[in-house]
């Protein structure tokens, strides 16, 4: 079976300025993978490169063993919630249905299967009763669930999500976690950008840690090493600083 993602020597960025350097890693199929790193570490740049939204300056990206344009129909993308204007005059159902749009059906009458998949997706995120509501009337968590429903409507093999847990309520958080479990059982692959280290180890079973370059990629049990966390967060994490000062203090006491 092909890897879900196979990335070699990837350098990418904006306006000729690289943000991520020389990344090499693979993500096998069937895992819930967290891409973690501090702000500005290039997580979103990585996702955008994978989705083909920005062109890599160097290196190759294989998605499910092919170039992204060959497998778009098998991939669903959940961008950050801030990427749209929530006052846009569309209903919850309209947005979820957009997950079914593709270059080959955008001018055609939609099939019944498209509508069914959309309703099923809305049911999975508990938004079926809100389907005719304008998206402007939703809470932040509900908005995030609409975005996830739009991806689920795709019925894809690989799901790529940019910060789906950012600023959501606990109802939404547990709904997403339940979905992730179901997706794992169905042998789907999910790649999630996440910045909160506190929760990362509860949510994911595979890790890609980056801070502009690759620090670590692999299974959860190997990821839980302090040295990787130090390197990823560069000591910018208060908790890690405390560990370090405590360690230094102990050494000094031992010396004296």
């Amino acid at each position: 079976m092909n890897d879900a993602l196979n990335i070699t020597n990837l350098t990418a960025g904006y306006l000729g300025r690289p943000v991520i350097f020389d990344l090499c890693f693979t993500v096998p199929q069937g895992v819930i993978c967290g891409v973690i790193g501090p702000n500005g570490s290039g997580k979103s740049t990585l996702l955008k490169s994978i989705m083909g939204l920005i062109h890599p300056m160097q290196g190759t990206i294989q998605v499910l063993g092919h170039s992204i344009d060959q497998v778009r129909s098998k991939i669903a993308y959940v961008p950050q919630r801030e990427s749209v204007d929530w006052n846009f005059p569309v209903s919850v159902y309209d947005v979820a249905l957009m997950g079914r749009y593709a270059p080959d059906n955008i001018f055609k009458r939609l099939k019944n299967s498209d509508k069914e998949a959309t309703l099923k997706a809305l049911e999975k995120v508990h938004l079926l009763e809100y389907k005719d509501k304008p998206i402007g009337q939703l809470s932040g968590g509900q908005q995030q669930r609409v975005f996830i429903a739009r991806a689920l409507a795709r019925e894809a093999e690989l799901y790529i999500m940019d910060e789906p847990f950012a600023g959501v309520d606990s109802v939404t958080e547990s709904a997403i976690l339940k979905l992730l479990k179901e997706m794992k059982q169905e042998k789907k692959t999910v790649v999630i950008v996440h910045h909160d280290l506190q929760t990362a180890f509860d949510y994911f079973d595979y890790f890609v840690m980056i801070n502009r370059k690759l620090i670590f990629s692999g299974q959860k049990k190997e990821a839980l090493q302090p040295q990787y966390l130090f390197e990823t967060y560069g000591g910018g994490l208060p908790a890690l600083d405390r560990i370090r000062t405590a360690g230094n203090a102990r050494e000094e006491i031992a010396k004296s």
Partner: protein
Amino acid sequence: MDIEIFFTAIFLSVAASISGIYMVLSQKSMYGDALSHSLLPGIVLVFLITGERSFFGSLIGALFTGVLVSVLIRRLEGIKGIYSDAAIGGVFVVFFALGILLISGPAEGVDLDQDCVLFGEIAFVPIDRWTIGDYDVGARGVWISLFLVLLALTFHLVMGRVMKFVSFNSEFARSRGVNPEIWNMIYHIFISIFIVLSFELVGVILILSFLVTPIAASWLVSGNMKRLIFLSLTLAAASTSTGLVAADALDVSISGTIAFMQGVTFFVFLSYYSLAKKRSIRRLH
């Protein structure tokens, strides 16, 4: 009041209130400004090359500069510190200035001046007749604006879904393999055609008011597309007809009165929206 002026104004406002939707919704209302001002140098350049001002020559010239302007704006937008508004503001003024510069010098003979482009004169609509053989079919303006209604409806029926898709979330559209740049460019060409066909009837300022105001007002109170379109059509027709009647009664500029009436309806809707919002906040407390 002349019935032909009445129909021209109503048709134009109705056609524009369907056409401008995706400009307003994707927060690019000023694109209309840019496209409308850029048509002047295009028309004049074609006049300089061919030595005459024909309908198709003008259309091609205006489309050429329209596309050029929208590509230029797109290119500038990405650069550090230049956001959409600055890019639009910077580009269209230069193009309009080029047009004025050409009219005042090398293209002095062209039958076009900046006043006519900006303000037009809807009162002259009945003078320009369309005749087939010896038979007078009516004012040319009525037929042009009726054609624009049909064009706008066709555009909406064919392109509505893809435009909604790319305007709502261009990043997601691109991830699905639908390139927003292409569809936005086609949309800009459509708006350019719209403006080229209509500006001599009422002037670009009123066209811009038609393209933006009823839609912006309706958006305040609409949560879905159907309602938005229905309301904006109604608003456009209502404010245009009251504007026409008022201009007739007061004997003042027709275009000015219509644009003013559109502004008034916008503020009426804004007040309604603000009151409704305050009331719902009070209910929450």
